[in-house]
């Protein structure tokens, strides 16, 4: 036990608020969606469509990706806001367009340990969304790893599929359904199980 006096921990955290409709001149930046230059060695397109409870495109969402590199290691490099074209920082940001689509040019993450399922960690923001949402887009290929994944195993079969990307010719496709039929599983990562 330490004898040093300990600061009383604050009991409250600052609440979130909606990103609103007017972030487009502030949060996007040059190269935000290009974690690696499109077309460079190993580059894939991670993309999909964000839709609402009526199945309509969400045109004013912001999507962020945070991911390991192909070796499974978590990047600790700065430079996401001023990319040098060579350093993989693992972070990207993009806005959806009028069709609700988003995409990143990136590398596919590797598993962080043998037998683990590799995924992209995603954050979604939008007008009408009072707080950010976290989710995971798993790569679909390693079925044994997916079957052994603790999060996927804790989900009913019908919802599990919402977290697994499919593939088109350019890379993983991951649609984000905020509400309703096929609603994406959004995560509580706070480390506390709901009472």
């Amino acid at each position, binding site marked *: 036990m330490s004898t040093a006096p300990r600061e009383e921990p604050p009991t409250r955290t600052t609440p979130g608020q909606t990103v609103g409709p007017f972030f487009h*001149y502030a949060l996007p930046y040059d190269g935000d969606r290009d974690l690696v230059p499109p077309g460079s060695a190993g580059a894939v397109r991670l993309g999909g469509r964000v839709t609402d409870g009526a199945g309509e495109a969400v045109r004013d969402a912001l999507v962020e990706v945070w991911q390991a590199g192909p070796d499974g290691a978590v990047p600790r490099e700065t430079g996401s806001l001023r990319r040098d074209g060579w350093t993989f920082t693992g972070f990207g940001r993009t806005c959806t367009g009028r069709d609700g689509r988003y995409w990143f040019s990136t590398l596919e993450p590797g598993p962080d340990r043998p037998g683990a399922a590799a995924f992209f960690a995603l954050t979604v923001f939008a007008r009408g*969304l009072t707080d950010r949402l976290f989710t995971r887009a798993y790569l679909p290929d390693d079925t044994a790893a997916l079957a052994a994944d603790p999060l996927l195993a804790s989900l009913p079969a019908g919802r599990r599929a919402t977290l697994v990307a499919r593939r088109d010719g350019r890379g993983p496709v991951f649609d984000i359904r905020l509400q309703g039929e096929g609603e994406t599983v*959004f995560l509580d*990562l706070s480390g506390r199980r709901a*009472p």
Partner: protein
Amino acid sequence: MDSTPVTASGLEPQSALSARMAAVEEARRATGADPRQPALDYPPYRSTALRHPTKDLHHADPEAVELFAPCFGERDVDPLEADLTLGGAGEPLGERTVVTGRVTDARGRPVRRQLVEVWQANAGGRYVHSGDRHPAPLDPNFTGAGRCLTDDDGYYRFQTVKPGPYPWRNHHNAWRPAHIHFSLFGTEFSQRLVTQMYFPGDQLLALDPILASVTDPRGRAMLVAAYDHGVTTHEWATGYRWDIVLGGAHGTPLEDGEGDRA
């Protein structure tokens, strides 16, 4: 059938909306949901209707990548980006203001060298955004976007002008209280926070369904800055202090004997 008074716009009057806000707050107190975080399903803020998940958030133990956050550094942010009054040929209109505060985790530890982004309307309540059709003047000397890195003690500091309130079409005669949008990263993925800072004494605070989506008055109070005469500077700018506490996987208060070396 419907006793809601009719307004010139055909939209719901503030009185009816305020009554619904109070009812949701009351109802949510009884559900056991954490009232300090905003309700995702919050009908008084109409745009939530088709955009809130209907299923509860699903508990997941963070994996390796989620226990870290992206790193930002000197290469990412020019120190001049913390001054929103620069960038035009002249000074922007409005009340020059400094907003500063400390970013910590829930255990009170500073979040060091991490990115803080802000954006806001100008003094007239107008954003430099093609979607903002409020007929208030644009200010050629003000864009309203800034960035900085927190210092080694977790402090951020922006120089700006106080934003104006602005109307929106959520209900009849709806006005957002003056606010600055903030975007923050912590030391782990789950600490990611986008929120809004408000100014003390604003009579619009009690009427605003976006602020009221946080259904705990103590949670709402955490979003309101304090006027700080120690931040105000002689013949230059008024000053506000606003501290930010990030949650996250390790954001729960300490148990006894835990985290002695924190």
